[in-house]
């Protein structure tokens, strides 16, 4: 373990953003708001209080700097080292936090080249109040950038990180170790815009599906995150089911090597044996190492011992490291280690009690359950059972994709189309009765 470092003796700490990123699309107010919420992650659970000040003698002076900026930790342009902060102490730089101004700082962006400012700020402020790097893969204090951590308004520190900061400062009065800190609305929190401020560059694309009113072509857990694929786009959820961005990302920009004219995928799964990712489309499949397709693909799905005709759903079951492939009312079990189909397959899908036939896809999730998706609904199967849980199906968009106002027991997923709308800031001209544009905004 890494040794503990110094801590602040005082409880009220001042902060100030002294310089802002020069080439970022994030405005000053958004940067200040993100810093506010990143500090609040720590103050919510400890007796520390942070307040923004003007002037040059804030305890935590925040700067966006380039290359060598005279503190012994030169930045190196995009990538590489992205930020650092100084531990608590009496030195005038103690607590100061620097971000590399040459990074592409983003907020609620699915851009894979972006660096989520909120995620990095939470990490650096962990240093500024005394935490060192740790090797725990789940920790926010892991030294390597692990991508966005989701919505700043909903972000919840991993429990081990809470314990480590509680060892330094104790628990904030209003919080018991197990209670979830509440954000109460009547404090004047700074406003966080739903979409990046320069809307002109991120207008919804014409062929962009509405995540709250669609069924999905494929759903998969990949490297612990959930991916929902629809047409040429996909949404991504972090390990704790936070939507990385309301905006879908384009498949081809992330998964390199798929044919550019491919307009959708059928099924996807991550192989447990080597963590490569398999995409199915029609009678062909592609294998990806990380997000680059491997040489020699696509290949025919007959490699699996499957008949021509394509695949509806595929998932890798962690209970036996085998891959289950579904097509209409039949399913197969493929032994990845021996690279062959298990004997006795195909079998009838009805063996999976309560699960629909001709599903859209299936996903094994980190809670040990398997989820089956069809239309706008999903079914849950616990552990190694083969029976849907009571109370399912439920509405996919509401439970996974930050949509609201859905009635799970509506007559049928399709007909409940009118009952759902995307919750945050999305234009939806199709619903304007009196020819006015309709925009719903709930935050």
């Amino acid at each position: 373990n890494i040794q503990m470092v110094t801590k602040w003796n005082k409880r009220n700490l001042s902060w100030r953003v002294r310089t802002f990123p020069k080439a970022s699309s994030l405005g000053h107010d958004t940067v200040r708001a993100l810093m506010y919420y990143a500090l609040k992650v720590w103050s919510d659970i400890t007796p520390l209080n942070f307040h923004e000040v003007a002037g040059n003698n804030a305890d935590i002076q925040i700067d966006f700097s380039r290359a060598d900026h005279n503190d012994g930790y030169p930045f190196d342009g995009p990538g590489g080292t992205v930020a650092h902060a100084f531990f608590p102490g009496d030195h005038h730089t103690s607590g100061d936090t620097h971000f590399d101004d040459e990074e592409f700082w983003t907020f609620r962006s699915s851009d894979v080249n972006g660096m989520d400012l909120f995620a990095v700020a939470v990490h650096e402020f962990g240093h500024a109040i005394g935490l060192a790097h740790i090797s725990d893969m789940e920790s926010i204090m892991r030294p390597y950038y692990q991508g966005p951590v989701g919505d700043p308004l909903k972000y919840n520190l991993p429990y081990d990180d809470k314990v480590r900061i509680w060892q330094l400062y104790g628990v904030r009065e209003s919080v018991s170790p197990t209670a979830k800190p509440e954000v109460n609305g009547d404090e004047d929190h700074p406003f966080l815009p739903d979409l990046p401020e320069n809307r002109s560059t991120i207008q919804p694309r014409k062929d962009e599906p509405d995540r709250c009113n669609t069924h999905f072509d494929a759903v998969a857990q990949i490297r612990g995150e959930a991916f929902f694929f629809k047409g040429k786009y996909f949404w991504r959820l972090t390990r704790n089911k936070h939507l990385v961005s309301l905006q879908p990302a384009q498949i081809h920009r992330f998964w390199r090597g798929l044919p550019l004219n491919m307009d959708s995928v059928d099924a996807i799964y991550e192989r447990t044996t080597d963590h490569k990712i398999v995409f199915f489309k029609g009678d062909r499949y592609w294998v990806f190492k990380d997000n680059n397709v491997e040489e020699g693909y696509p290949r025919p799905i007959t490699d699996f011992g499957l008949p021509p005709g394509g695949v509806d759903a595929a998932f890798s079951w962690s209970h036996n490291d085998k891959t289950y492939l579904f097509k209409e009312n039949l399913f197969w079990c493929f032994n990845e280690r021996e690279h062959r189909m298990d004997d006795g397959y195909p079998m009838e899908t009805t063996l999976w009690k309560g699960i629909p036939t001709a599903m859209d896809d299936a996903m094994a999730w980190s809670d040990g359950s398997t989820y089956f998706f069809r239309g706008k609904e999903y079914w849950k199967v616990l552990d190694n059972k083969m029976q849907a849980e009571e109370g399912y199906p439920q509405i996919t968009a509401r439970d996974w994709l930050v949509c609201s106002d859905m009635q799970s027991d509506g007559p049928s997923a399709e007909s409940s189309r009118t009952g759902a709308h995307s919750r945050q800031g999305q234009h939806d001209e199709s619903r304007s009765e009196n020819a006015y544009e309709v925009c719903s905004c709930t935050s």
Partner: protein
Amino acid sequence: APTPTAEDINRGVDWLTRFGYLPPPDPVTGQLQTQEELSKAIKAMQEFGGLKPTGILDEATLELMKTPRCSLPDLSQSEATRRKR
């Protein structure tokens, strides 16, 4: 596995020194870092980063070294020195 190039090794040594896995070469004695120290430092970095501790600059290790990260070292100098000892 492909053997790391000399450039990889240089960059790796620089990276390991920068982030606290290798103490900087001793300017007084001019002592260079030994292969054994380097292998230990790589192993420490691999364990810290969640990789298989092979002690060699394999592909996964070089890849992790390219991952964007915080500038602060992962181990304090005394820790690295203690590892060296």
